[in-house]
């Protein structure tokens, strides 16, 4: 119960902080709209059988990933800049329980991006999003946010030794957009790309959202998305242990 309370309060405060940041709050919501606009124009001008609704849902999830990837990479570094990293590491709860709500908060900002992109498509491009399974659609979004937060958590702990962690976070924005199947079907990619896509929770989250919106069966995709999210968290906890131990041994926690 105490753990859940810690996660909940941590998420709430982090979400409030990020929402008030011009770069992470406003900027991250606007940024994917430009890419969504290009995608809408390209799909409208082309003669693909894929519809603008397909592009709209994909572009909306692109925004969710964008909100996570660019900021999660530097999540621990941000605490270092604030001067709060040592204090947080020294608190009794495991550091993972403190860092995970940070990246979950970032992923939650993605909901703004998603709503903004869908509304953008609706009012500027006339794309009507009709949801066949609203409940499953809501669950798919929730599962996707959680798995994005989990992947962001893994990024945050893996990149902590890099001074320019934010640049690495930025680097992963386009590749996941590309091979996550957001706007491009995986069938168009070479075979060697497919296993990489399957190892990414965003791929399954995107599938679940699309299936629930268009009338398919999203449960398998959602289960895989959440399963991968749990795996990311487990791996992230192990990496956190290792990173913190190394930092303590070397006295390098506050150094970059």
């Amino acid at each position, binding site marked *: 119960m105490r753990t859940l309370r810690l996660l909940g309060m941590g998420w709430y405060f982090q979400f409030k902080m990020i929402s008030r940041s011009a770069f992470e709050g*406003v900027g991250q919501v606007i940024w994917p709209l430009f890419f969504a606009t290009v995608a809408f124009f390209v799909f409208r001008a082309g003669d693909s059988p894929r519809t603008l609704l397909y592009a709209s849902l994909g572009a909306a999830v692109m925004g969710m990933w964008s909100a996570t990837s660019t900021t999660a990479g530097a999540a621990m570094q941000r605490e270092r800049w604030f001067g709060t990293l040592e204090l947080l590491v020294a608190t009794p709860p495991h550091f993972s329980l403190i860092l995970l709500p940070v990246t979950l908060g970032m992923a939650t900002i993605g909901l703004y991006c998603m709503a903004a992109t869908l509304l953008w498509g609706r009012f500027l491009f006339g794309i009507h999003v009709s949801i066949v399974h609203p409940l499953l659609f809501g669950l798919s979004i929730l599962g996707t946010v959680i798995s994005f937060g989990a992947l962001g958590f893994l990024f945050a702990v893996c990149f902590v030794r890099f*001074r320019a962690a934010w640049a690495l976070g930025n680097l992963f924005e386009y590749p996941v957009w590309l091979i996550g199947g957001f706007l491009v079907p995986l069938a168009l990619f070479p075979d060697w790309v497919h296993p990489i896509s399957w190892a990414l929770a965003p791929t399954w989250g995107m599938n679940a959202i699309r299936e629930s919106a268009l009338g398919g069966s999203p449960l398998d995709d959602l289960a895989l998305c959440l399963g991968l999210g749990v795996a990311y968290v487990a791996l992230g906890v192990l990496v956190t242990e290792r990173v913190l131990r190394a930092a303590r041994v070397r006295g390098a926690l506050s150094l970059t």
Partner: protein
Amino acid sequence: MTVAARIFFVGGVTSFRALFYWLTPWIYVPSLLVGPIFQILLFAYIGRSAHLRSDEFYVIGNAIQYAAIPCLFAMSQMIGGERYQGTLSAILVSPAGRIPLFFGRSMPVVVNGAFVAAVALALGCLILDVRLPLSSIAPIALVVLIAAFSCTGLGLINAAISLRLRENAVLTNVIFGFLLIFTGANVPLDSLPGWMSTSAQGMPFTHAIVAARRLADGASLGAVGGLVGAEVLVGLAYGLCGYALLRWFEAQGRRYATLERA
């Protein structure tokens, strides 16, 4: 004259090295060399998925348009970085001529922007197996350099706004986004609404991208001379506007003591 030349060349290079912190390989390589490759791949595959244009269209468009990142961010660092370091007032109180001061800082940015675009173009062609005629390489390199010059002109305006705006990174991303949509890098200009394709004529990259595509299709440099000239004019216009804005905001900053406050 010697002093002005020293401020222009030495001051420009020193400022670029000191303030454009992306120069460290840990940032430069992922952001400026790898980043554009994935942008090219993303839009090339979206184009394949939508059955719109060839890979060549997206490789050239996105490689040139990506020069906006180094050009816009470096120019905003020219002001934002000085403020962050606490040296902005010292720079602006100095009697140094403003033309060599500001334009000198633009030159390394132009060179770097052209380098980033050229590398993206070369790697994009290699990865997607796009073949450009050998005779088009040198003219395209010239067009890429002019595109970077043109965008750096817009970057000067961005730098001037940095004297008034704290969150310049957001503004820079917004400008990048507009360039992505309007300049025909990914959407053919004739597929955009009329007002958008008309507005694009006054933006950096629009003419350069068309010129580079025509060169890649075998046109001679002379045949795209009008487009290249238009791109130069756009860059000059933005550069002059940016310089005027810088001087105006500098005067305002002195009058209201707001240089360090934005």
